[in-house]
């Protein structure tokens, strides 16, 4: 709670501005900027300047344009991964917690097994086995991501199912599905939103991490992770190649984390 008070204080405007810029870049950016894969050999490894304000990469491609396309990839992956994970995880967790009995036993065991893998390791192995590409990145991250929501939803439903309004609904003969959807889910939305916000930060880092390892989006499409990887080879001559995508990545993750702290504070959810 003291932590909440502290993180409630910093500017709200900062994370909001960062995230708005990120979303805007993702939505309309690529259609506003030039061709991110346009190669100009005479500009190879040129630093920031009049021709391109973030400079050019090892093939003479414009870094700013590639950064904008990378924003779309990271936004798309994060949005899809988190929404699918929330849907699947909440459904499984709520059903498990509400029904109880052997179904709960089995589902809890399955959740435990998935929790036993270090998340990013399972994602790396899955993406590696499924083969590179954005679809497989999304699949791998959902397989890892749903568990957290399932555990959270189950715990919340367990603590709520004996509330009076739920008992009243049961006594009135309301169907189970309706009780879960109308009487339980609305009460657990707040913690799910907070968890979901932090999951966005996790998904952004994970997508970039997989791309960094060469398991994500394939060339020539730009991703922040692969830009960092390619940039490390020229770090001495052209540090802007590593700095630009790294700063973008860090700002977005920072913004999302600050928003998460703020939401936790506002929605009064204990971390």
């Amino acid at each position, binding site marked *: 709670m003291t932590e909440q008070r502290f993180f409630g204080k910093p500017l709200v405007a900062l994370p909001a501005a960062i995230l708005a810029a990120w979303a805007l870049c993702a939505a309309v950016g690529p259609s506003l900027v030039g061709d991110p894969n346009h190669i100009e050999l005479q500009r190879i490894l040129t630093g920031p300047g009049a021709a391109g304000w973030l400079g050019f990469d090892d093939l003479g491609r414009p870094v700013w344009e590639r950064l904008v396309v990378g924003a779309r990839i990271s936004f798309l992956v994060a949005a899809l991964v988190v929404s699918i994970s929330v849907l699947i995880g909440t459904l499984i967790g709520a059903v498990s917690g509400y029904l109880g009995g052997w179904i709960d036993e089995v589902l809890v065991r399955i959740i*435990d097994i998935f929790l036993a893998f270090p998340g*990013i390791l399972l994602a790396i*192995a*899955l993406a590696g*086995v499924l083969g590179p590409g954005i679809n497989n990145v999304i699949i791998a991250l959902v397989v890892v991501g749903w568990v957290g929501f399932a555990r959270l939803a189950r715990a919340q439903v367990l603590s709520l199912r004996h509330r009076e309004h739920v008992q009243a609904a049961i006594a009135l003969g309301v169907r189970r599905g309706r009780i879960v959807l109308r009487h339980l889910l609305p009460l657990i939305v707040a913690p799910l939103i907070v968890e979901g916000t932090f999951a966005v930060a996790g998904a952004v880092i994970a997508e970039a991490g997989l791309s*960094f390892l060469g398991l994500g989006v394939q060339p020539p499409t730009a991703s922040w992770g692969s830009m960092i990887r390619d940039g490390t080879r020229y770090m001495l001559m052209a540090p802007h190649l590593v700095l630009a995508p790294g700063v973008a990545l*860090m700002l977005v993750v920072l913004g999302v984390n*600050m928003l998460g702290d703020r939401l936790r504070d506002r929605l009064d959810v204990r971390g």
Partner: protein
Amino acid sequence: MPTFILSRLLSALLVLLGVSCLVFLLIHLVPGDPVEVMLGEAAQPADREALRHALGLDQPLLVQLLNYFHGLLHFDLGTSLQSQRPITELLAERIPPTAELAAAALGVALVIALPLGILAAVRKDSVWDYGAMSVSLLGISIPNFWLGPLLILVFSVSLGWLPVSGRDGPGSLVLPALTLGTALAAILSRMVRSSLLEVMHEDYIRTARAKGLSERVVILRHALRNALLPVVTVLGLQLGVLLGGAVVTEMIFSWPGLGELTIESIQRRDYPVVQACVLVISAAYVIVNMLTDLVYGLLDPRVRS
């Protein structure tokens, strides 16, 4: 107490069983024919059949699973397709460097997190608190695959203080441990802070103060001891993050551990080795978490019930 230990052991065993099954299924997720993916399209049909037979992929799934468990129980994880060496031999070489890196990163995390968290809690709502927690927020937000190259740029390339990569002497451990430990330090410092603040409201702290003990003794002797209990649990859980992060960190610094082996094997499509690496890392995570639970149960009788 024996029931508590037994139930923890049993549930860890069940989880390990499930983990092994999932890892076993991993190779069947390869799109199309895994043998073709591993050998490439140009391979001779005879070679394909030989590999298929060697991996047991020509047998029914259930038989494959039983063979797999039979191998696991005899510490036989098969042979690497690339190096033709027994996988257990490869693992034996790769586990010590990863354990070394993880331990060093844990050390780094504790050395940073404890003072930072205590400072923030003791000087709550002051500039120190804001400063410490801003550093922590930044630490959580910096991906290790960016931090690593930045550290190399500053400390190896520009200043020339530390080696760029490899595992050669204690100096080579510094940057990988820092890269891997930073995120954990950030998370732990927030935990230490909030846990310490919570404890500070307890009656025994008021009693200690009323006895006229110095604030230093109150915090270090009375508050911190109790505040660290939940932190230990989080530490166990965060070990997964540490082990997962080690995969990426080892890649950046060419650290010859399990993580590097995992990625190399993915790139070479040496799937049996990938399976073995995932299994060993996850098993280590499960076992450490079980031990954390047991220790916690020993320290705090309330947990056992």
